[in-house]
């Protein structure tokens, strides 16, 4: 794994309950403290605290404009908060200050340690399905042949075998979203952020995509944070966090 620059690394004291290696699996993988973020006169986050355990799947719900997407972006290091801090504890290596470091360093963190799935997939239309997935590895320096082999493995796992050479426009919405899931997972990301991953899909395809997303994340011991409007999607996550006016108003564990 890539070693982060020194100013990114923190002492494990910064994270709660991180005493020994054996207990690491129970250690929070992500910890946010007093996050605030405003856009002009709009307060998107007003002192949010959130802790996510390793292997958990957390649904973030809320009305439009409640601050849920901003929260996801701040947790993922896409958006810098006005105040507060986010720390990420990888399975191996030192704890990382997600909100610290330069934009370049945060980009590197996202590229190498996090995975992302968006509502529309947002895959590169000129590339084939397998190239879209392997590109994530190639950007990190993996040789093309190895990247393609690894990507093919993920495609087969997600039921996309035989579609390697198809272009994105030749895939259905559900298939394209599974390609996006494979792209998010192929680098071995421990933490996957999904923003309305089923928002543009019908209910059956939505179920299939959530199956794929959960299998490839929590099913492999990884962690999933998903922003959704869909209560059925939220019900399939281990915990639901509700956001209103920039505050977390409810955090419930699914039955």
């Amino acid at each position, binding site marked *: 794994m890539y070693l982060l620059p020194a100013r990114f690394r923190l002492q494990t004291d910064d994270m709660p309950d991180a005493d020994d290696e054996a207990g690491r699996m129970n250690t929070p993988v992500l910890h946010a403290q007093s996050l605030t973020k405003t856009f002009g006169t709009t307060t998107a986050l007003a002192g949010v605290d959130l802790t996510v355990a390793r292997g958990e799947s957390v649904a973030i719900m809320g009305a439009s404009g409640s601050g849920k997407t901003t929260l996801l*972006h701040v947790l*993922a290091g*896409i*958006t*810098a908060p006005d105040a507060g801090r986010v720390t990420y504890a990888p399975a191996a290596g030192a704890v990382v200050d997600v909100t610290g470091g330069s*934009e*370049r360093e*945060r*980009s*590197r*963190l*996202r*590229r*190498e340690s*996090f995975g*992302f799935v*968006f509502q*529309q997939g*947002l895959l*590169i*239309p*000129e*590339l084939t399905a397998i*190239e879209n997935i392997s*590109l*994530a590895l*190639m*950007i990190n320096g993996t*040789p*093309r042949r190895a990247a393609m082999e690894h990507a093919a493995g993920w495609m087969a796992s997600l039921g996309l075998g035989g579609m390697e050479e198809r*272009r*994105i*426009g*030749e895939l259905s919405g559900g298939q394209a979203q599974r390609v996006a899931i494979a792209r998010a997972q192929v680098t071995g990301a421990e933490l996957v952020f999904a923003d309305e991953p089923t928002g543009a899909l019908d209910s059956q395809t939505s179920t299939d995509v959530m199956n794929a997303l959960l299998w490839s994340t929590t099913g492999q011991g990884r962690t999933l944070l998903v922003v959704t409007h869909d209560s059925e999607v939220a019900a399939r996550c281990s915990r639901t966090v509700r956001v209103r006016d920039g505050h977390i108003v409810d955090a419930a564990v699914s039955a």
Partner: protein
Amino acid sequence: MNAQVLALLLRPAPGQGAVLALPATAFAMVTALVLTVVGGAQKFWSWTDPDAGLYQALAAIALVLLVVPLATLGGAAARLSARRRDERLSTLRLLGVSPAGVTGATVLESTAVATAGSLIGVLGHLAVVPLIGLIPFRGEPLGAESILLAPLGVVAVIAVVVLLAGVSAVVGLRQVVISPLGVRMRTSVPRVHWIRALLAVLVIAFAFVFVQVFPGTAGIVITITVLAGMFAVALAVLNLIGPWALKIHAKQGLRRAEKPERLLSARLVLESPKAAWRQVSGIAMTSFMAVFAGTGVAFMSTMSATESAENLALAADIRTGLIITLVGSFLIVAVSIGVNQASSILDQRELHRSLHFLGVQMTTVDAARTRAVMSPLLFTALGSALCAAVLVFPLVGITVITAPLSLLTIAAVVALGIALVWFGVRVTRPLLGTAFQPA
């Protein structure tokens, strides 16, 4: 659609200044260049002495060389203007506006932008005319007043540019498939078949036979007609082979691609070899002519001991005309590529934003798109130059030894032109950067 709705739609949205300014600038460039080129040619047609025919024939060739890149630039500007409407068009469709109404709104806006741009272009033309007037031909400067077109001519040029914008907007709308949700789908790669190469070989064979049977003692009018015809054939052959050759070149690049930017750039070309060719096709003929005519002129200048003063002056004039054509052609292609790139960046804004979220560096995307332009450009420019060098091989060999400076001048102009095109891509980098800015 009533006038109030139309006015609402045509009102520029906040932050869209650049999106309007880009096509307007491109239309301004097109108008200024067309007025300058036609104005310059007008001077040549004012001569009536026995040598005038040769100058007029050469000016006609230069005009033909500039028509292709100018048409490409006009089309690019019009497409950029039309693309701005994509999102609003989808909304209009959802609101129940008929396709004809949607087309009408787009055409109206494109022509309005083109008219504004053209008027700015006229001012630009008036600004450069004094400089162009200083260029010497036949021993004296052209003169600013002789380059200026009559008012009716200026109006005609503006009308053609605006018409081009309107037609391109309609064609562009047909090409952009917009679903009611505004999702543009690119399902299949347009095919570029090897049959093009076969057709090109047949055309070349026919042209070769035609040249053999053409009488060497034909009159000047027939010779000029045949020369222009051969030129058109050469352009047609290049247009047949070009996309296919670029496809083969990009496929080789794709096979070898180990870095993400190389993979992306090869795929960008393969996405539409025809579009890639359209961008650089103007350079192919120009580059061919640069070596072909440049070598001839250099060769003529080495014969100073035996040639008359008139012929030496003619050689100098041809060299001047060649350099002007080269600079003009590269300038148009550079602007055209800049406009195309800006258009593409605006089109892919959401995708670039998502790549930024994934941690992809802007430099990777920038390198890919730069390569997707420069690789076909270099391939086309150097390939055409090589073809010309092979055709006039013995002459090239002689002039390399006897007149290296003349050849170096042509080579320097081509290198400068390539740098100009690179700059055309480079200036759109800040626009790309906006998608990669931290939130």
